[in-house]
């Protein structure tokens, strides 16, 4: 009997296409050995994804003739890495013209929303994604908040309610939106997005005496923003079972490696360890395209 090992890997981590899933399920109906392997592989995947990133020790830079950059976390080096900058949203394939990928379909939800820092914008320059004039206008309007109740203790009481919460004047959120189906990520720029979001969350936590209240994801463009939030949540939940137990921090419709995708960043914790999970799931079929977990 031929066991489809290659497809089993994709089946287990949610990246299999519909025809692949069908073929695997057909095989599983008469292969108890593969059924057992699927169970084992699933539990291994969960265990591996639960591992946190560890802190790296100082690496010796003197071998590279770089005395001026030791220690590696000097303020200048940190600023170079995490300071004001515009990040490339588009995939870096040479065939694409300019910075942005223009997708032919305009019906694709492309706004992104982000939980605001209660202490206000940390940087004057918007970092990710690009702010447009329309977003700036919308930011002054009354905002609709989507409240996601979080239960981090392992239970399953997560509920999602939409509440109209007018923002007090003077506390404009950092919500940013990108318009046009022009956000596209490659594998490499997606990794960078995840790392940047993790740093953002870490920075916000440092500025606040305690964790921000769960939920309160505000949208500058209420309709498009709500759509992105709810669609991202639903699709990621279907693909990974994740959003029932974690706080949604960032949601975006974009392309990942050319595929229309919902991108969600979730903050969760187990015990003392907080993590950021950044996931891209395909709009079509809610398949996991990419899954990154970073320690906070």
């Amino acid at each position, binding site marked *: 009997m031929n066991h489809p*090992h*290659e*497809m*089993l*890997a*994709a089946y287990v981590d949610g*990246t299999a296409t519909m025809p692949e899933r069908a073929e695997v399920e057909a095989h599983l109906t008469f292969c108890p050995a593969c059924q057992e*392997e699927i169970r*084992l*592989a699933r*539990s*291994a995947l*969960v*265990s*591996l*994804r639960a*591992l*946190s*990133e*560890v*802190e*790296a*020790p100082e*690496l010796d*830079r003197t*071998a*590279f*003739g*770089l005395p*001026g*950059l030791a220690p*590696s*976390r000097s303020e200048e*080096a940190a600023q*170079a*890495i995490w*300071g004001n*900058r*515009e*990040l*490339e949203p588009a995939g*870096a*394939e040479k065939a694409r013209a300019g*910075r942005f990928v223009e997708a032919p379909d305009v019906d694709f939800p492309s706004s992104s929303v982000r939980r605001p820092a209660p202490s206000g914008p940390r940087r004057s320059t918007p970092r990710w994604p690009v702010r447009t004039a329309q977003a700036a206008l919308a930011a002054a309007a009354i905002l609709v908040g989507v409240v996601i109740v979080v239960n981090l203790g*392992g239970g399953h009481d997560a509920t999602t309610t939409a509440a109209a919460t007018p923002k007090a004047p003077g506390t404009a959120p950092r919500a940013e939106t990108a318009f046009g189906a022009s956000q596209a990520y*490659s*594998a*490499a*720029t997606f*990794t960078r997005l*995840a790392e940047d979001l993790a740093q953002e969350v870490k920075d916000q936590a440092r500025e606040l005496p305690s964790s921000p209240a769960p939920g309160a994801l505000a949208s500058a463009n209420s309709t498009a923003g709500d759509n992105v939030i709810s669609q991202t949540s639903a699709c990621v939940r279907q693909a990974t079972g*994740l959003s*029932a137990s974690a706080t949604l921090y960032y949601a975006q419709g974009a392309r990942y490696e050319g595929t229309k995708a919902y991108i969600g960043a979730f903050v969760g914790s*187990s*015990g*003392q*360890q907080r993590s950021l999970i950044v996931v891209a799931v395909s709009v079509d079929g809610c398949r996991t395209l*990419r899954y*990154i*977990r970073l320690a906070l």
Partner: protein
Amino acid sequence: MTGQGPPSGDNSRAEPTDAQLVEKFRGGDQAAFGTLMSRHERRVYNIAYRMLGRPEDARDAAQDAFLSCFRHLGSFRGDAAFTTWLHRITVNACYDALRKRPPEPAPIDEIPEPAPVRDHADRAVASVDVHRALALVPMEFRGVLVLCDIQGLPYDEVALTLQIPVGTVKSRLHRGRVALARILLGEPPPPAEPSKPAAGDPGTEAATGSRP
């Protein structure tokens, strides 16, 4: 891919991409290598730590990886992303370390892991056990497990990094996951493959990144 990181764009203070830093380094700007190192060292170290198990071995391998990167950056052609190349060098440095190491029991004195994790099926799996179990998984599976399931890299990227076909990535990934799960259940580890390198196991000549 032409490299990651932000473009130069309209904002003159924007941070350079990896590709731009490589060019600056080639143009004589040594400090550009330091920026590259700061940007990627945490990830490089984490790959090595999960592949090798012991912090001191991981540190040595990460150091070796950056040294190799530094020495060969001049000949890096840029037809793969810088990170693909750097990750390849890192994994090679880990394989070199593993080959030199005599077979040993599970490492002790690892970095303390966070409290046991509850996955969404509500089972608790202690992270320290997972880390130890990973050290018992056969070598040829460990690279894909670390790159795919811990680093979250997509199959295509891992295939480029390890210079093996995507199908091989998936097949090793599945078998690696099954092996890890069996180890966590307390079953004896699978028998070691014969000492010849597994198909696609990058040899030391790939440290120069000479193949695209």
